[in-house]
Structure formats: structure tokens, C-alpha cells
């Protein structure tokens, strides 16, 4: 398990990109995902660029714009990469936690820490084959 990024929602991606550039962060990857109504700029500090541009892809901030306006600006969550996403999720559920987003796609999942902070997990390497019980599991709160 290792840290990937902290996700920050923005209502104005261009302005945010400029601002974070002034702070000393450079974009290392940008994704446009119209199907998910979002775009994202991953940005890294100078000394982090080498690892951020490598397959480790960390540490960065993910500056996310929801094009449907569904997210209010500010820090949304932190994200970690895990070796076995299903094992991580099973461990959380064994502790009585509800998944905010079960790993239906075999790649991503989210849980709320005590007191509300959202923690996201990404599967390392190739995504896992989607399977039950995750496929049928609805989002939690």
C-alpha cells in the first residue's frame, strides 16, 4: 500500500492550474472523462516529478473538475494504491465499515474514515476481474 494523491475539487480548472503552477506544481497527467462528467489534472512538486511520472504515479494532487457541477470546491479525499483491493475491502467490511463505493469495477473503492474523511483505494497493476459480492453492492454513505 502506498500513497497516490490528494484529490481537490475545483469549479474552475484553468484558474486552479494557474494557481498551483504559481505554487510550484506542474501537471504530470491530465484526463478528460466526459462519460464520468469530469476532468482531472494530476500535479506534482518539482522534486516529486520523477516518481510522479513513473509507474508509481505519486505523490501528486488530483485537481478534479466535475463538469456537471456536482462537487463543491475543496479537499475531497486521499487515495492509496493497494496490492489486493478486494482483500482491503473485505478487511474494512469485517471491521463493520460500509463502503462508500464498493470495488464494482475491480479497480477503485472508497470508504469513510471515522469522522468523515474519505479514503480511496486503487488496485495496483491490472484491475481485478469484476466479481460478486462487489458487483451487486450499492454505494454506502
Amino acid at each position: 500500500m502506498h500513497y497516490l494523491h490528494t484529490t481537490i475539487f475545483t469549479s474552475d480548472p484553468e484558474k486552479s492550474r494557474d494557481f498551483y503552477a504559481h505554487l510550484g506544481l506542474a501537471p504530470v497527467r491530465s484526463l478528460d472523462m466526459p462519460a464520468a462528467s469530469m476532468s482531472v489534472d494530476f500535479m506534482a512538486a518539482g522534486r516529486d516529478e520523477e516518481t510522479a511520472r513513473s509507474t508509481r504515479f505519486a505523490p501528486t494532487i488530483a485537481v478534479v473538475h466535475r463538469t456537471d457541477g456536482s462537487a463543491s470546491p475543496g479537499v475531497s479525499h486521499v487515495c492509496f494504491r493497494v496490492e489486493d483491493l478486494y482483500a482491503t475491502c473485505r478487511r474494512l467490511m469485517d471491521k463493520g465499515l460500509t463502503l462508500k463505493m464498493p470495488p464494482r469495477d475491480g479497480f477503485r473503492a472508497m470508504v469513510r474514515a471515522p469522522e468523515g474523511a474519505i479514503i480511496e483505494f486503487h488496485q495496483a497493476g491490472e484491475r481485478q476481474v469484476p466479481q460478486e459480492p462487489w458487483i451487486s453492492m450499492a454505494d454506502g454513505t
Partner: protein
Amino acid sequence: MEYLHTMIEVRDLQQSLDFYCGTLGMIETRRMEYEEDRCTIVFLCAPGDLETAQFDARFAPNLELYAYWDDEERFEKSQTPWGHLGYRVDNIYETCRQLMDAGITIIRPPRDGFRAYVKTPEGVTVEFIQRRPALTPAEPWISMPDNGTIND
């Protein structure tokens, strides 16, 4: 410049440690008790980050759990558990000078030669930490007042 940590404010430190360390398997890398500010700060890293996170010279990437001892101060300033993002810089005076030249307000100037805060236009607080050793306190920073409030 390099990423250090993301801060999360918590009320019940033990409950959070049970979650981050007990359930997720994260590792405590440093704990600080501040009598003056009446708070405990615990830094945690993922096991895969231990190689860099546990050493003072790098000390990243970590999560910073920030717990006030007294109820009245908890979550007083903000509605979310998220605090600042921290970055280490080579020369905090140069960094702050460049930010001011770009028209960015320094919320807390580096009066101590070690630490400064700015806020993004959408309210996210960013902390800058001087690579050790701290710089000698100097003008114009010493006389510069705070300009706005920090979400820690």
C-alpha cells in the same frame, strides 16, 4: 519543492488510529504533543511509503492527524475534517516572494524563517516548510501580520 503530507483534523484520536493503523495497516512515523497549543499531532504512512516517510530528511508522504485536547477548539474553524497540504521548499523567503509577486496573499508569513501558509482561491490551505535548518528570521517577514485565517 516536495510534497510532505495532507492534514486531517480528528476529535477522537484513538478511534482514528484504530482505523488507519489497526484496519488499514498504516504506520505511525512521528508523534508530537504540544502543551502550548494543547494538541497532539500524529504522522502516519502507508507501509509502502515507510522507506521515505520515516526519515526526518524526507518525512513523506504522510497523513497528519491533528487532535485538539479541548472540545471547544475542535472543528471550530472548519466544517470539514480536511486541513492543509504541506510542501517542503528550499528557500521559504524566495517562495513567499514569488507568490507575492504573483499577487497571492500570504496568510501567515514566514516570521520564524520556517513556516508559511497560503490559501487557494477556493479555500484550500497550503503549508510551506523550510528545508532544515530554518532560515534566520528577517524583514520584511518579521513585521508582516497574518492576513486571513488558516484551516490549520
